[in-house]
Structures are given as structure tokens and as C-alpha cells.
């Protein structure tokens, strides 16, 4: 904890777990054993020891979102609160800069003061015990031997109302000097010693110091210490028989009016009248716990522990009331974009694509580096409060046109790049502004315009972010206006992932290779008749944990005859066959099938009689697409090259096409 907000996140997360435990303990107060009642506090102890909000997860309640929203609303700070350690760490260098810093200093001072008070109280107690006389150890040894406990040094201290154990490493049993102590009281204290209850008490005191201003955790600390006493009672009763048990209850009853001063590193049988009454009631229930409860006790503890310790992933961005006229909604949405991080490159690229499609700055924030959040927020706030009164999410991506929300986006040529990925994000447009946004749009129904932008996805700490690599480029395709579904099979007017080329006798060869990666973004729209499937639509909701569902690969091959027209006429029919080369140079067998075609190995073939106009103009062209095999989330591997064989006039020529652009040179 390094600032007020990280302390709040930690203490609120613990409060959520504490509230859950209190509710469950109230439910099972008379049903589960004192062993469970005390042991289940271990869940809260672990929650207190684990830094809250790790990995974008939250326990039970979405405290990270609430803390982030409050921080942004109160201070305008768009940084992400992180809990580095469950203990307070000093404020960074320099003077406190804000009221939040001052409050954090106040918290630090409170924790230090309480720690000091506990330490002094413990030292005073040890000094008082030093003044006590060595007690007769015979009774202690006898009781310890009778019940299989470890004896310890004992001192008789004048003025004590009841016995207690003091110390964790060198424990001392303090006994009242003025009166004899019952064996059962000794047994109770020796059992505290055996089960290290003083150490648990010390840990509880440390938690009190760390969360001194959280009353709920103080209540839990009180209850946990009372449960430790009840558990010790249970252990005593398990070792006693018949009348001795009733005697033990009477001894407890006699302590109901004793003064109780809780000190760190001690355990005392007397813990106040009200608590003793509760313990006597627990003793009365002693026989009512049915056998075999251990299994269900462990199962219940596991059901409570897992969500309290490991929590839930933040579900996505919170778009508030969707009225978007409310600054608080906006701050909550921005907070959710900080808390819910993209855990995969696919999710970050998807969020960027949808941010552009929807012109949604919250989506953009989800996949933007955290240091860009203040500028993004300022841009959106300026748009919302400016003369045009845009909605608060309005974000200007620079897209030179209006996208088609039915079409979504297409992620071309995903390529590994220095620990991240680069790709080309392509948006089919309903209409484009080739001459700039101030000029009339191009709205030719016979032409589909594409806007594309190179992007880079990279990991920043525990989130994937997307960084645009240049401006959008407009491309006019030869296809008529549609939803661009065919774009998964490649588009010649867009850049290639890899271009392979080679020159051979009388031919210049080129093969352009493209890939498209896609998430599962199809949703079925509702129809009036619920049993009929609705039309498929593009899901524009962001998915921070999504992975690629499919990948497609396509190629376009051209072979251009570079000889004279006479030579071309003399060639007759030209046939070609090509196969991809793997990195070690191996390849499938070259084959010439009938007409033109391709196989699942990546081989393809054709001839001048079916790959161009008749009479042949000297250009061979071919192309096809296929699903990429394997897991689309694995690093894509391109062919190292292509082996092409051309056969004409009874002569064959072979050429190896190697990458000249993109891929491995």
C-alpha cells in the first residue's frame, strides 16, 4: 500500500470478505464446531495478506471499480491503483501533494501509533511478570503430563484475577499469587501454548494496526480472539469427562465479572462477561455437533475461500446508465477500462477495432496504454462539454469515412514483432472521404472503399495495448458496396504479409501472401418468432479475455512473361505448378492436376489456357484462400518460400520464390 487509494482498496476488499464471513458465521453459529468457527478466520487472514486487485481480479465485490471511480471523481486522477504489498509503504519522495496524501500520512501515523502502543503494553506486561515470583512448577508439570501438553515457566503475580500465557517465543504462564489455580485453568492455558494461540493473537494485533480505521475488521478481530477462546474451551472439554466438564463451566461462570484487558502476544481464559456467556452456551452445545462434520466443514470453507481469495475477473467495461450526460457515469466507465484489462493480444486488437467502429473512447481506453488515459479522457470531456455536445464516449479515431457496423473489421497480416504483434486493421466503409472530411463523400454503390491502418499490439505489464502505427489509408476496391464478408479471403489492393518473388528464364514471378485473424464476433439477432434463428450480426461489445477463433490464409500468384511477343506465341500452352517450402527446404511433391486447382498442402497448379484471357496475354494469375490449420492464437508461421515449375513447349523451368517484403528475408 503506497497511497490512500491502495489502502482503501486493500481494506475494502478485506471488508467484503469479512462481511461474507460474518454472515456465514451467523448462519452456522450453532451448527459448526468452534474449530471451524476459528479456522474460517484464516480465509480473512489470507485475504488481508494478499495484495488486493491483483491481475484485474476482485473478491466478491467490485471494489477496484468503486475505488477507481471515487479516485477519478474526487481527484481527476486516471492512474491505476495497485496494491504492491499488504502493508503500508512510505509515501513517495517529496512533500504530500494532495489531501489524499495527507490522509495517507494520517493513516501511517495511526498505524505506527497503535503498533507502538501495543509494543509498550507488551513490554510493560513482561516487566510486570519479571517482578513475579517463580511459581511451584509441580502442578504445571503434573497437568502437562496428564494431558500430553508441554509445560512452561510459570510465575505467580500479585493482583492477577486469572491465569494467562504471555509471549510467543519464550512463553511464561502468569498465575494469580493470592489463590490456587484449578488444574482445568492450567490445562486451558497449556492448550493455548500447544496450539500457538499467542502467535495468532499477535497476528490479529498486527492486522488491527494495519487496519486501525476499519471498524468492521476490528469487530472481526474481537470475534476471532473470542473464537480462539471458544476453541480452547472445546479442546479442554474434549479432554475432560462428566463432572469435570460441569466444573469447567462453573469456573468460566466465575470469571464472567473479571476485568479483561487484551494485550498482544497473550492469551487469557477470561475474556469479558459477554464473551464468557457465549462460551458457556457453546459448551452447552458441545454434544450437538454430529459426527462426520469435518468433511462438510472443509467443503464450506473451500466454497468460501476460493471466491474470497482468488476473486473474479472484471467483466468488461461498464457503460453506466448509457445516458452519457453524466460525468460520474463517464468516470466510472473510464475506471472500468483501467480495471478490466485486455489479457490477450486478440482482445486488445478487437477492442481497438470496435473502438473505431463505434467511435467509443471507453473501448479505446481499454486497449490504450494507461499513460494515455488522461489525454483520452480530456478529449472525450472536451467533446461532451464543447459546442457540439457529443456523448461522453465520443472519440475521434481519424477514420476517413463511416464504417459499416454489420461488417465489423478485418485484421490482416498479424505478424510477431519484438515481443508483440503488428497487423493491418481494415474497415469496410459505407462511404468514404477520399478528398478529406470537408469534401463530399464518395458514395458510388459500385465501389467498396476500405480504410486501413497499421497497428501494433504489445504487452505493458499485465495488459495488452494497441498502438496505431500511422494514419488511415483509403483503398478503392474493384468490388461493389457490400458488407465485405469476402475480405477474409484476402484483397489484392491491400498490402501482403509476405511477398515472394523470383525471376526465371523469360518469366517474372510474384506471390503475395495475406492472412486474416478473427474472433468469434457473430451474434444472433432476435426474431419475432423466438424458435427461428435470427440473422447473424457483428457483436460490437468488447471482450477483454477473448482469443482468436479462426485464421485464414490467402495467396495471389502472378507470372509475367518477359520475352518478346514472337517468343510468347511460340511457347504454346504454359502450365505451372507451385508448392510452399518449409524452413528446412522440404516441400510437398509438385503436381499438375487437370485445369487449375489447389490442395490442402498449399500446392496449386494451372495453365495459360485457364489462367488468363484467350489468346494468352503473357500473364498467369492464380489465387485461393484456406483456413489456417492449428490454433489461430499460436504465432503464425509463413512458408519460407515457394517452388514454382513452369512447363512450356516441352521444357520445364523451376524457380524458388523468396520473401522480398515482410516475412523472413
Amino acid at each position, binding site marked *: 500500500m503506497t497511497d490512500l487509494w491502495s489502502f482503501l482498496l486493500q481494506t475494502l476488499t478485506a471488508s467484503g470478505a469479512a462481511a461474507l464471513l460474518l454472515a456465514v458465521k451467523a*448462519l452456522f453459529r450453532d451448527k459448526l464446531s468452534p474449530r471451524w468457527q476459528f479456522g474460517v478466520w484464516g480465509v480473512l487472514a489470507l485475504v488481508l495478506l494478499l495484495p488486493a486487485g491483483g491481475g484485474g481480479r476482485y473478491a466478491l465485490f467490485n471494489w477496484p471499480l468503486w475505488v477507481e471511480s471515487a479516485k477519478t471523481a474526487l481527484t481527476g486522477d486516471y492512474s491505476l491503483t495497485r496494491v504492491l504489498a499488504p502493508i503500508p509503504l512510505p509515501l513517495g519522495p517529496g512533500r504530500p501533494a494532495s489531501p489524499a496524501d495527507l490522509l495517507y500520512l494520517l493513516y501511517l501515523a495511526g498505524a505506527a501509533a497503535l503498533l507502538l502502543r501495543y509494543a509498550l503494553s507488551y513490554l510493560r506486561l513482561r516487566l510486570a511478570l519479571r517482578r513475579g515470583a517463580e511459581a511451584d512448577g509441580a502442578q504445571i508439570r503434573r497437568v502437562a503430563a496428564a494431558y500430553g501438553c508441554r509445560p512452561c515457566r510459570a510465575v505467580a503475580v500479585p493482583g492477577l484475577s486469572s491465569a494467562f500465557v504471555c509471549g510467543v517465543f519464550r512463553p511464561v504462564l502468569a498465575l494469580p499469587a493470592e489463590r490456587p489455580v484449578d488444574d482445568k485453568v492450567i490445562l486451558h492455558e497449556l492448550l493455548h501454548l500447544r496450539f500457538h494461540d499467542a502467535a495468532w493473537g499477535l497476528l490479529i494485533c498486527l492486522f488491527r494496526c494495519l487496519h486501525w480505521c476499519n471498524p468492521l475488521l476490528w469487530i472481526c478481530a474481537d470475534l476471532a480472539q473470542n473464537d480462539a477462546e471458544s476453541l480452547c474451551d472445546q479442546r479442554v472439554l474434549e479432554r475432560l469427562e462428566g463432572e469435570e466438564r460441569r466444573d469447567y463451566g462453573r469456573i468460566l461462570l466465575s470469571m464472567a465479572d473479571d476485568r479483561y484487558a487484551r494485550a498482544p502476544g497473550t492469551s487469557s481464559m477470561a475474556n469479558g462477561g459477554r464473551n464468557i456467556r457465549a462460551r458457556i452456551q457453546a459448551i452447552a452445545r458441545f454434544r450437538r455437533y*454430529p459426527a462426520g462434520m469435518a468433511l*462438510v466443514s472443509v467443503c464450506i470453507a473451500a466454497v468460501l475461500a*476460493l471466491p474470497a481469495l482468488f476473486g473474479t475477473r472484471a467483466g468488461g467495461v461498464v457503460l453506466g446508465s448509457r445516458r452519457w450526460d453524466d460525468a460520474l457515469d463517464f468516470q466510472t466507465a473510464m475506471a472500468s477500462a483501467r480495471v478490466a484489462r485486455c489479457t490477450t493480444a486478440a482482445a486488445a486488437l478487437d477492442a481497438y477495432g470496435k473502438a473505431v467502429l463505434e467511435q467509443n473512447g471507453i473501448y479505446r481506453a481499454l486497449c490504450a496504454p494507461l499513460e494515455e488515459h488522461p489525454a483520452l479522457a480530456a478529449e472525450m470531456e472536451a467533446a461532451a462539454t464543447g459546442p457540439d455536445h457529443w456523448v461522453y464516449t465520443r472519440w475521434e479515431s481519424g477514420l476517413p469515412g463511416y464504417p459499416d457496423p454489420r461488417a465489423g473489421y478485418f485484421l490482416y497480416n498479424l505478424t510477431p514483432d519484438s515481443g508483440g504483434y503488428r497487423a493491418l486493421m481494415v474497415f469496410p466503409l459505407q462511404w468514404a472521404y477520399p478528398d478529406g472530411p470537408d469534401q463530399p463523400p464518395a458514395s458510388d454503390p459500385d465501389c467498396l472503399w476500405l480504410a486501413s491502418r497499421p497497428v501494433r499490439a504489445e504487452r505493458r505489464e499485465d495488459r495488452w495495448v494497441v498502438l496505431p502505427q500511422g494514419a488511415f489509408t483509403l483503398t478503392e476496391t474493384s468490388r461493389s458496396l457490400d458488407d465485405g464478408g469476402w475480405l477474409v479471403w484476402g484483397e489484392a489492393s491491400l498490402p501482403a504479409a509476405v511477398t515472394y518473388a523470383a525471376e526465371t528464364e523469360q518469366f517474372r514471378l510474384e506471390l503475395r501472401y495475406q492472412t486474416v485473424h478473427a474472433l468469434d464476433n457473430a451474434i444472433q439477432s432476435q426474431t419475432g418468432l423466438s424458435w427461428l434463428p435470427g440473422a447473424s450480426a457483428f457483436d460490437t461489445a468488447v471482450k477483454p479475455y477473448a482469443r482468436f477463433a479462426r485464421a485464414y490464409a490467402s495467396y495471389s500468384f502472378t507470372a509475367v512473361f518477359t520475352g518478346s511477343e514472337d517468343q510468347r506465341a511460340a511457347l504454346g500452352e504454359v502450365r505451372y505448378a507451385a508448392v510452399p517450402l518449409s524452413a528446412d527446404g522440404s516441400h510437398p511433391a509438385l503436381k499438375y492436376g487437370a485445369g487449375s486447382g489447389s490442395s490442402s498442402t498449399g500446392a496449386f497448379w494451372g495453365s495459360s489456357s485457364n489462367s488468363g484471357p484467350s489468346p494468352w496475354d503473357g500473364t498467369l494469375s492464380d489465387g485461393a484462400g484456406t483456413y489456417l490449420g492449428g490454433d489461430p492464437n499460436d504465432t503464425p508461421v509463413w512458408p519460407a518460400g515457394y517452388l514454382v515449375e513452369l512447363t512450356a513447349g516441352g521444357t520445364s523451368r523451376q524457380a524458388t520464390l523468396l520473401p522480398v517484403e515482410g516475412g523472413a528475408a
Partner: protein
Amino acid sequence: MTSHPEALYRGVSHAAWGYLFLYLDVNLGTVSILPAFVGYLLFWSAIGALEGEVRDLSLLRPLCALLGAWAGAGWLYSWTGSSLDGRFYPLDVILQAASLYFHFQLFTDLALLAARYQPEGADLDRHLLRLRTLQVLLLTGLALAGPLSDLCGGPAPWLSAALSLAGLLVSLALMNRLFALRRCFHPAP
């Protein structure tokens, strides 16, 4: 025997039929025609009939009321076409814990009843205890499957399906054993 055989017969019958409503889920649209809250009403009635014989059963009344009330609220809400599942996650966790204890304790007590009244040589009580243990492990597995899937980065539908199938088999076996226990209290003609 501190209760009438008729009361014991009725109590065990209600418990057995209660599990039918609890575990079998037949829906018309989003609305269940075997709602779980009816199961808890039957359990409530069973507790009333049997608590004179097994004192610990009275401990289950608050849990039965809580689980039944939530099941009833969920059933009413299902008429709107939605579900309450997952809307109040901390409450779901509390209810899962309550449910574990409730069924564990109920079968512990029913096994106690079986041990008292089963015919000589019958193993009904041991069967019930074994099935109770299996049931509590399966319920725990189902409760943990969601958070574990979330922790591991994705849902594991096969795990939930396997646990649900095993749960169905165990519940059928439990109902079978409860009807067998009921025969121990069959009223004389």
C-alpha cells in the same frame, strides 16, 4: 419411537419428493414446472414431522427458510425471462455454503433414523451416509467449478456437465434410498 409412524412416513416421503423438485428441472420457456422452492416447502414439512425423532433437524429450519425463500424469489423472477443466478455473487456464495450444510445434515439425520428403524441386517443408514458424502463432494465441486474456470482463464463446460451428470445419478440414488427408508414406516393396513 417418540413420533407416530404416520408422521415418520410422511416426513420421509416429503423429503424424498422434495429432492425430486430440487434436482429435476423441467422448464416451460424460462419457468420451471418443478420449482425448487416447492422442494424446500416439502423439506420444511419433513423437518416438522421428523424433528420429534431427531432433535438436530430443528437446526435446519433457518437454512431451509433461507434456501426456500431464495428459490422462490428466483422462480418468480424467472417469469420475467431472466435469472437471479450470478446477480448477487456474495449471496450466491452464502447460499452455496448453506446448501452444503443443509443437505449434509439432513441426510446425516435421515441416516440416524434409518439406523434406528431399518430391518435387521439392512444397510440403509450406511448407504445414505455414503451417498450424503458423495453429494456434498459433488455440490462442492459444482460450487468451485465456476470460480476455478474463471481462474484458469476460461469455462470448462465438460467439467460442469460431468459434475451435473454425476449429481443427477447420486440424487436418483438418494431418492431411491429415501423411498426405501419410507417403507420402514409404512402404515399398517
